[in-house]
Structures are given as structure tokens and as C-alpha cells.
């Protein structure tokens, strides 16, 4: 889904038509407010923004989206794009800043890249959420054991560190691998790294 925010109706319609011709769905908005009031957050895709609009400008809307934590890629289109504005928009994380007149194919390429970026980010986010949910399902003891496993410690060493029998550690280890849905140490380490900072080990 491509969200097109532009005060010029002719531009909105021609962009929507262009996207439709290559099978990309779009929605159009005459101003920033109409976009913000829509349910765009329930959609996947990217935003195509006109820089200069009456009311809230494209730059202001971009800022607002960042504040709201919206990660959808933003492509700016401008008829009067000057260099400092392009620099500012890109520094803030815009996906593209395109100056009119542009070739239709150039815009389509940008939009396709933005859609891929959005899909990739969402997949990564979903994987991290799944890993965190698996980690949350571990008991405090299992989590302690897991942290020592990913540090590369052998069962014998973990047993010594935690004052457990080696057999108990083996059982915890088996539970960790089962709950984390993996059979290999390398995959376990990858998951823990992806999940990032796990915070304090809960006391048991």
C-alpha cells in the first residue's frame, strides 16, 4: 500500500493511476491531516509526500511520523526541492527525495525499494518479537543457564557456576533448546543477539 499525500489533485490521481498500472495499491490524501487521521498505521507499505502543502508541510509531517515511531519509508517529491531541504530530509531518514520532473520509472523504482525495505523491517521486527516471546517463556533458572550457554560455557562449568549438578544443567539445557525452538548452539546465539539487551536476569 502506497500512501500519497499531495495537495495537487492532478498529481495524486496520476500517481495513483501509475501505481495501479503496475499493480500497486494506493490511497490518496489531500493534506497531512487527512493522512494522520486515517488508519494508515494498520497498513504496510510506504508514504509518498509532497514537500510543500498548505497547512502541515511534508517535512513537518515526516517529523511527526518520526515522533510517533512510524517506521514506514517516506519518499519526498518536490517541485521546488532545494539542496538544504533534501539534505535535511535525508538526514532525518527519508528513503528518497525526488525532484520534479522525474521519470515515472525512477519513481516506481524508488517505491519498489521502499516497499521492500518496509517488508524486510517488518519481518525482522516479527522475528525479534517471536524470539523475545520465547525468551519470556523461560524460567529464571533456564534463562541463567541460557546466558551461560551463549557465553560458550560447557555444562560442567555452568554446573559449577550455578552450584547445580551437571545432570540438572543438562535438563535445563534441553528445556532451553526446546523452548527456543533450536537444536544448534549457533542458532541459539543468533537468536539471543537478535533479541538484544535482555535486561537483568530475573532473580530466582
Amino acid at each position, binding site marked *: 500500500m502506497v500512501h500519497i499525500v499531495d495537495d495537487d489533485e492532478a498529481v495524486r490521481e496520476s500517481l495513483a493511476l501509475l501505481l495501479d498500472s503496475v499493480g500497486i495499491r494506493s490511497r490518496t490524501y489531500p493534506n497531512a491531516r487527512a493522512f494522520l487521521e486515517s488508519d494508515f498505521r494498520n497498513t504496510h507499505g510506504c508514504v509518498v509526500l509532497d514537500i510543500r502543502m498548505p497547512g502541515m508541510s511534508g517535512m513537518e509531517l515526516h517529523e511527526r511520523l518520526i515522533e510517533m515511531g512510524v517506521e514506514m519509508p517516506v519518499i519526498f517529491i518536490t517541485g521546488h526541492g532545494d539542496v538544504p531541504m533534501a539534505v535535511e530530509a535525508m*538526514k532525518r531518514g527519508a528513503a528518497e527525495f525526488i525532484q520534479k520532473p522525474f521519470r515515472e520509472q525512477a519513481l516506481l523504482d524508488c517505491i519498489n525499494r521502499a516497499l521492500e525495505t518496509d517488508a524486510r523491517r517488518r519481518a525482522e521486527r516479527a522475528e525479534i518479537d517471536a524470539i523475545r516471546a520465547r525468551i519470556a517463556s523461560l524460567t529464571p533458572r533456564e534463562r541463567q543457564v541460557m546466558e551461560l550457554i551463549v557465553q560458550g560455557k560447557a555444562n560442567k562449568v555452568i554446573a559449577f557456576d550455578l552450584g547445580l549438578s551437571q545432570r540438572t544443567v543438562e535438563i535445563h539445557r534441553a528445556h532451553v533448546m526446546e523452548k527456543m525452538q533450536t537444536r544448534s548452539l549457533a542458532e541459539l546465539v543468533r537468536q539471543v543477539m537478535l533479541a538484544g539487551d535482555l535486561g537483568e536476569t530475573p532473580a530466582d
Partner: protein
Amino acid sequence: MSRHPPHPGAAVGREPPPRPARRGAPPLLLVVHDPALRARLARLADREGLCARVLGGADEALAALGGARFLALLVEHAPPRLDGVSLLEEAARRGILPPALLLTEQGDVASAVRAIRAGALDYLEAPFSDSQILRQLRPLRAAQCPDADLRP
């Protein structure tokens, strides 16, 4: 142009020798085609107590970036004589791009977008002021040597 100064901190051309660099601050790398801009940046570096190595071509710059650490790269974008944006992109591709500032007499939106995407801290179009450059350089130096006196 291809002859490097004897060491990375060496003085440039007829500029007076720089003051000794503050401890811990690596030199700047200036890749500039325009002689006036080159002299101006070398003076600015000197006033800031930073060493500067000055090169005129992208190939030499890539070789230098691959072999030494720099506080920052200041590069002129003046195609076709010196394509600073392509230099940034290539350095980024090789993983040897330090914090970089792009300076240009005549900027355009497309190259500005490429420069920032390649990782440039800023893209400055003439006329740019020294303070616009220093706004980027001083925090870098402060991060290198926290004890350094940051007054101009």
C-alpha cells in the same frame, strides 16, 4: 599531487607548519580540487589545531583512507574534475569511510541525496561558512580527546 607529504600530519604547501595536534586527534583528510578552497580548509584546520593531509584526487584519497585513521574527511564535489559523492560511496562500500563532509560550489538534489545516503554528515553548498564546518568537526574532536580545550 601524487607525492604524499612525509607523514600524515605534515604541513601543506606554503601554509605555516601546524601547531602540534592535540593528543589523540587523528588528522583531517582534505580532498579538494579548488586551490582557494584547499587553502581555506587548511587554514581552518590549522586554527583548530588539527593536522590536515591534503590530496587532490579520489584514487589517492581511497588509498589514504585504506591505510590510516582520520578524524574526518572533507571532500569537494566538483565533477567532472573531482566526484566527491562517488568517492564517498566507494569508501563506504569498502568500509573505510570516516565521518565525512561534502562541500560543493554548485549542489544538486540528486548528489545531496546520494551523499547523505552514503553516510555523509552534511552536504554544504557554497557559500558555506567556517562555522557550518566546525559544527560538525568539533564534536568529532571532542569525542576523540575529551580533555581537549574546545574553545576556538
